[in-house]
């Protein structure tokens, strides 16, 4: 589903992503882990054609991201790190906006489902700029699934949500994968990965330090934190 070769991106002297190879199979719930500033967001922006890599190759859905970034954005559901839906539309209008851009019709039912599943129907007629961070994150989650993509790429999905909503989102993602979807999430919270991911990669200072399945023998039964510290120290 996702295949990355020798991917690098430097900002001046900062090596945000440094020569990374990565493969994600269809049907995985894949976690990209790493502390703040390790290059996760940069990685995700390159995967989704939002910024150009310094060097390397990326294929998503079998599409060469460098050659056809729009095609990748069409096929994929993307949730960026900064929850910044345009500010003066209401939440509901924003979903319709995304639907129109993606040329979808009759999305009312879907919208209503999301409003009630993530419990933000009461704010659906409030301007996005006046929404709380958590609600904006819910909105961004909803927009990513409108077109029924079979791959979603999410940057820090749970960061602003309360425990109840985190639970719902985790359940939804697990269910989505069960039905044949593929998920790629980044997070710096290790427990989330342990709980829901089937595969993971760890990057640290732009370098890939581990990549494998969650039940990899190298990890064993240890807390992920211990494994992680061992890798980076």
């Amino acid at each position: 589903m996702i295949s990355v070769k020798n991917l690098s991106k430097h900002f001046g002297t900062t090596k945000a992503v440094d020569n990374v190879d990565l493969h994600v199979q269809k049907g995985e719930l894949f976690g990209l882990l790493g502390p703040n500033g390790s290059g996760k967001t940069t990685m995700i922006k390159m995967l989704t054609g939002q910024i150009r890599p310094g060097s390397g190759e990326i294929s998503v859905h079998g599409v060469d991201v460098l050659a056809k970034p729009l095609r990748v954005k069409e096929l994929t559901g993307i949730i960026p790190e900064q929850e910044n839906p345009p500010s003066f539309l209401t939440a509901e209008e924003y979903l319709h906006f995304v639907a129109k851009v993606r040329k979808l019709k009759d999305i009312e039912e879907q919208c209503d489902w999301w409003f009630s599943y993530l419990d933000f129907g009461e704010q659906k007629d409030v301007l996005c700029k006046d929404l709380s961070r958590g609600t904006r994150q819910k909105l961004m989650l909803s927009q990513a699934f409108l077109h029924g993509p079979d791959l979603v790429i999410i940057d820090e999905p749970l960061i602003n949500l309360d425990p109840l909503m985190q639970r719902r989102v985790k359940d939804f993602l697990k269910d989505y994968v069960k039905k044949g979807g593929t998920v790629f999430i980044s997070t710096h919270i290790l427990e989330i990965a342990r709980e829901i991911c089937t595969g993971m990669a760890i990057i640290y200072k732009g370098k890939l330090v581990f990549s494998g399945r969650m039940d990899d023998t190298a990890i064993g039964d240890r807390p992920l934190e211990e494994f992680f510290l061992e890798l980076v120290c």
Partner: protein
Amino acid sequence: MLELFRSMIKEEWRMHSSFFGNRGFALFPVVIAAVSLLLSLSMILFGRIVSQTEVLLGLHYLFLFMGCMVGGFGLLGREVMNMRFGQLSLLAYSSRTLPISERLIFSNFIVKDVVYYFFLYVLPFTAGFAAGAVFVGPHYSFVMLLTTLFLSFCIGLSLVFLLTTIYANLGKKALLVILLVPVVFLLFLRGTGSVSFYALPPLALYLEPSVDAFLTCLVLILVPSVISLIFLKMDFPQSQKHYPNSFSKLADSMGFYGYSPLMAKDYLDFSRSGGGPGKLVFSFLVPVAVVWLFLPQLLQLVPGLDILVVFAVVVGMMASTMYNWLTEFDMFGSYSFLPLTAADVMRSKLNSYSLLNLVPLAVVLFAVLQAGRLQDLLHIVLLFVAVSMYVVSVTVYLTGLNTSFTLYSAGNFTTYLLAIGPVMLGLVLLAQLNFQLVLASAILVPVAGYVLRRSFVKWNL
């Protein structure tokens, strides 16, 4: 307090310099000084028909006008602070968490802006102009000119600040009344001949320095500003409002246009931002009214100039600033995860821009009617449309979707001036040779098209 102010200044500097490097930003005033030097030197040619007092008149009104253009602080209350950068991370914004009143933060913000304008425009302009004058002949007192031009700028700024604050408090219904006040005032002035123009306090102060004149200037600046700050609406609109879904219908009704969802979003952003209609009035109609008032005065100095032609050119250039309004709430980052290219977003902005242009078009039509020159309607409208399209195409090429602040780079600004200045002068001169030659402006339309196509390529990732 002082610390906050210093940090804001630093922040603004870094924001600009991180974009075009320290040099690009630091050289911006140098470009301004060079332009005013040239202007001053051109008095070798024009000095015979324009007297020094008339030059001073022009300069002071120019800065009054600039002040008017940038004085809309009251429009958005707190939002004005971050709208230019579309980021919530600015000090002005985040310092809400500090134990300081928002009013104080806002005052700091305005003073900071004024300081920036002083160093970016007023100081270099005056320096260049005074330096040029040394070669040409008439003597200008540098310190005095610097002071009075700055006062003139501040008066324009604080008056429009007051108007926008009244608007923010009274709401849209009061807009017409608020607009009528300056218009009636201008109409009244228009009848009184040139003497009343010299009553502009900073100008009077330069021509005949006196403590009284100086105090008048201060009162004109401080009283409106203080009133505005007292009545400033920090959160405008105040409560968390609920809106029915008007997006879908709007987008459908614009369906015949390309990019209708983006345009519908532009429209809603514009009309709901509180800045929308107010912006049209205060950042466009009021400055246009000032031009309309002042142009005949300026042009009688240069006999034979066609007022309508100059007016159409000026309005066309001013119209192009409306492109900023469409981009300042947006970053491409808000769209980059959707199947849209930067060029798509730019095209949609240009579509919205062309709709917004109906307002300046109406102004131009009004001016033609007022002058009783119906027979020239086509020429003047063509001229306006061509200028507006050409100038906006240059703006788009140079700045993409970051218009309001990418122009502050010395390189960009020089290119902007060189691409636009000679063309506009050329058009006015052609028209003076023979009015029919105004039709030549039609050639700007395909040129604009070409520049835009190049821009789309340039700004695509």
